């Protein structure tokens, strides 16, 4: 699988390189803005909004990249080169996911560096806030880890749902004239059903309300509740992701029509 991964990284090298350079340049720009110039509160707020937008843009880009990495093999001509290699469908799928994961990891590392610089500067300005409104650093770290895991698992789940509909299109629906449309509808329905089921299961495991911050006055307790819920959701999503991985791998292995 390492060799398949190397090949996928090779095919991604241009988009990977461009994305890395852009994010690195943005970090350099941010560094000088934050630490070498006298930056106003308004500008700080603007950078915060831009940072959040950039974060979502990278997330969306990675979904597009995930689609591209599979569609070039399933929907365009390049598939035979990979699918004649003697590597099974699971390895091929795993290598593709790993390649996009590596790209995402690198991008989010750079985004994380930018966020760290921004939050460090912001932290200095927020030092005036009352102590009871601050979350303990231990809880905050665990919460950030849970949220990052949740984002990663949601992304994998979404990508696998897309891959499943593409694999269905290139297997069971390959002879259907409206195969593309049907597989897109399958994607929408599947996504909706998975979200609903995950929502129902997670709700059965517990709930929390941000409003309880005001009723209890304990930020740390609310954070712990939220973290627990996010973790429950992560577990359910991982189970679904494993199921989808097996399904897509099996279709790539047994039913593909290239």
């Amino acid at each position: 699988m390492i060799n398949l991964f190397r090949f996928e990284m090779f095919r991604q090298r241009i988009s990977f390189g461009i994305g890395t350079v852009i994010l690195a340049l943005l970090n350099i720009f941010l560094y000088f803005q934050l630490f070498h110039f006298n930056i106003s509160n308004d500008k700080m707020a603007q950078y915060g909004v831009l940072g959040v937008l950039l974060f979502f843009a990278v997330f969306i880009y990675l979904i597009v990249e995930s689609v591209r990495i599979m569609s070039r093999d399933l929907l365009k001509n390049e598939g035979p080169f990979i699918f004649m290699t003697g590597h099974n469908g699971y390895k091929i799928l795993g290598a593709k996911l790993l390649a996009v994961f590596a790209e995402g990891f690198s991008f989010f590392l750079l985004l994380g560096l930018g966020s760290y610089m921004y939050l460090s500067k912001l932290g200095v300005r927020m030092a005036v806030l009352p102590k009871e409104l601050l979350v303990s650093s231990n809880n905050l770290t665990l919460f950030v880890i849970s949220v990052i895991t949740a984002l990663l698992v949601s992304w994998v789940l979404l990508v696998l749902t897309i891959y499943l509909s593409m694999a269905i299109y290139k297997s069971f629906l390959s002879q259907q004239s409206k195969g593309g449309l049907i597989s897109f509808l399958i994607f929408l329905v599947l996504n909706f059903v998975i979200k609903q089921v995950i929502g129902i299961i997670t709700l059965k495991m517990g709930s929390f309300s941000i409003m309880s911050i005001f009723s209890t006055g304990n930020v740390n307790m609310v954070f712990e509740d939220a973290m627990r819920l996010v973790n429950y959701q992560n577990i359910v999503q991982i189970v679904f992701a494993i199921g989808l991985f097996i399904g897509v791998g099996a279709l790539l292995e047994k039913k593909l029509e290239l």
Partner: protein
Amino acid sequence: MILKTQNLGKKYYRKEALKNVNLELETGKVYGIFGPNGSGKTTLMKIISGLISQTSGEVLFQGEKIVTTSKKDIAYMPTSAYLYEGMTIRDAAKYTDLLYGKFNQKKFSEYLEFFELNEKDKVKALSTGMLGRLKLILTLSRDAKFYMFDEPLNGIDPVSRGKIREALIEATKEDRTFLIASHMVYELESMVDEVIFVKSGDIVEKNEADFLREEHKCSIEEYYKEVFSRD
């Protein structure tokens, strides 16, 4: 025997591309599979290479059902331009070696020289003829047991066709099994040991090339024209 198909069938929606094909290929022979466009040659090769699955029947490779790992010993050259365009010829060789294994780098270099290809050239910059040659040498440089070439001369200029024929003739001297599909019978008939005619998904003839020439007192191409102009 290296390959055997038993009642192999393939349906595309309502069209039957292969109809209960029973075929036995012996080790070390060169088979020419001839038939007009749409006769089922590519479908048969794609099933053997694992790019599509059959609707019915089975394929046995060296006596066993084809599994993913069998692909290591089956080298197939499809008609499509399946190489990633952003790579150079050198990259194509490197990744064929990495992903397929059993890649003969020395042979590849010799073929490059023979076909006058520059390993620094990008795939997207190659003409149809050059790409055809590259696909051929990537396939021939693999140390596989069974080789399949789908229309290796299609869209290729006469000079390149001659070189491809030359390379194929040289390669077939080794003890390996070849299945070469084409509708250009004249170009290939001198190099094949056995001839397979495919018509509308059916094998309508499978025999020794020399036997057919003697039996019908004509070349394989003339016999092909006779068979395929019926009804």
